[in-house]
C-alpha cells in the first residue's frame, strides 16, 4: 500500500462546557481573589486536603472545616519538561523547557501540580521550599492559573 493509497480525513471536534466550580472551589477562589489566602478542607481525622472537597477518602468522613495553608510550599516532586505540548484548552503550545512539579503547601497533606520557575533539574529536590508568583491582579481568572508559577527559594 503506497502512501497515497491511504485516506485520512481531518476533523476538529470542539466541545463547549460551562463547569460549575461548586461550593468548595467557589469559596476557595473567591477567598484567594479577595484576600490572597489559600484554604484547604480538614476532616475529623485531621487530614488537610487541597483541593478542598466534600469527603476525605482516607477516612471516608465528610470534611468538617476550612483551614488556611501556605502560601509558602515545598516540592513534593519535580521534573523539567522538554517536549512541546499543546494545551487543549487554549490550543497553544507551552514553550519548552519548563519546570513542573508537585507543590505541597505548608500545612497541607496533599500536593497540587503546578509550574516551577527552574529549568535545571539538578537544582531541584524533594522538599525544596518554593513560593508562589502571582499573575497581575488584572489578568487573574479565578483558577489555579492565577499563580503564574512557583519560584524555588535557594538559601
Amino acid at each position, binding site marked *: 500500500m503506497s502512501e497515497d*493509497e*491511504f*485516506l*485520512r*480525513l*481531518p*476533523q*476538529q*471536534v*470542539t*466541545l*463547549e*462546557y*460551562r*463547569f*460549575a*466550580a461548586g461550593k468548595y*472551589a*467557589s*469559596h476557595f*477562589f*473567591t477567598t484567594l481573589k479577595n484576600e490572597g489566602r489559600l484554604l484547604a478542607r480538614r476532616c475529623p481525622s485531621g487530614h488537610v486536603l487541597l483541593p478542598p472537597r466534600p469527603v476525605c477518602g482516607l477516612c471516608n468522613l465528610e470534611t468538617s472545616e476550612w483551614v488556611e495553608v501556605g502560601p509558602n510550599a515545598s516540592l513534593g516532586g519535580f521534573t523539567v519538561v522538554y517536549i512541546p505540548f499543546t494545551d*487543549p*484548552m487554549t*490550543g497553544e503550545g507551552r514553550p519548552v523547557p519548563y519546570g513542573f512539579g508537585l507543590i505541597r503547601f505548608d500545612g497541607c497533606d496533599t500536593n497540587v501540580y503546578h509550574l516551577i520557575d527552574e529549568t535545571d533539574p539538578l537544582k531541584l529536590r524533594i522538599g525544596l521550599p518554593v513560593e508562589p508568583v502571582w499573575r497581575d491582579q488584572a489578568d487573574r481568572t*479565578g*483558577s489555579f492559573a492565577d499563580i503564574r508559577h512557583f519560584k524555588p527559594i535557594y538559601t
Partner: protein
Amino acid sequence: MTEPQLIFDQKIDLPYTYTIGKVQRTFLRGLAEGKLFASTDGARKFIPARPFAPDGSRLPETVEVEARGTVVASTRAGHLGGKVFALISIAGCDGAMLHLLEEPLEPGTPVEAVWEPDAEPGILALRAFRRAS
C-alpha cells in the same frame, strides 16, 4: 453576603484524523468523482459502503451503483437553521444514507444525487439529494 457561584467556561478543542478503511476509501473517493459505490459480499450491496453488514458479515468488495434512490424520511431541522436532513435508500441496496435535501420530500419520493464540483473525498462531495428529474 452569599458567595458567587463560579462558572468555568472551557472548551475541549481536539484535532482528529480519521483513517478510512479499504471499501470506504473507494466510497468517499468515488463521491469526489460523482460516483456512488456500494460495498458488497457479491450478493447484498450496502450504502453507505462499510466493511461489515449489520450481522457482522464481511463486505470486502465495492461496486458502482446509480446515485438514485427514494426518501425513507425527511425533516426540516428548524432548530438547526432549517437544514433539511433525510434518510435515503439507494435502489437495489440495503442500508440507508443520512444526507441532505434541497427541500423536505414525502417518504417514497424518488431522488437523485447533486454533486459538489471538484470536491475533496468525503461525504460533502455529495452536496445533497433532490427530487429525481
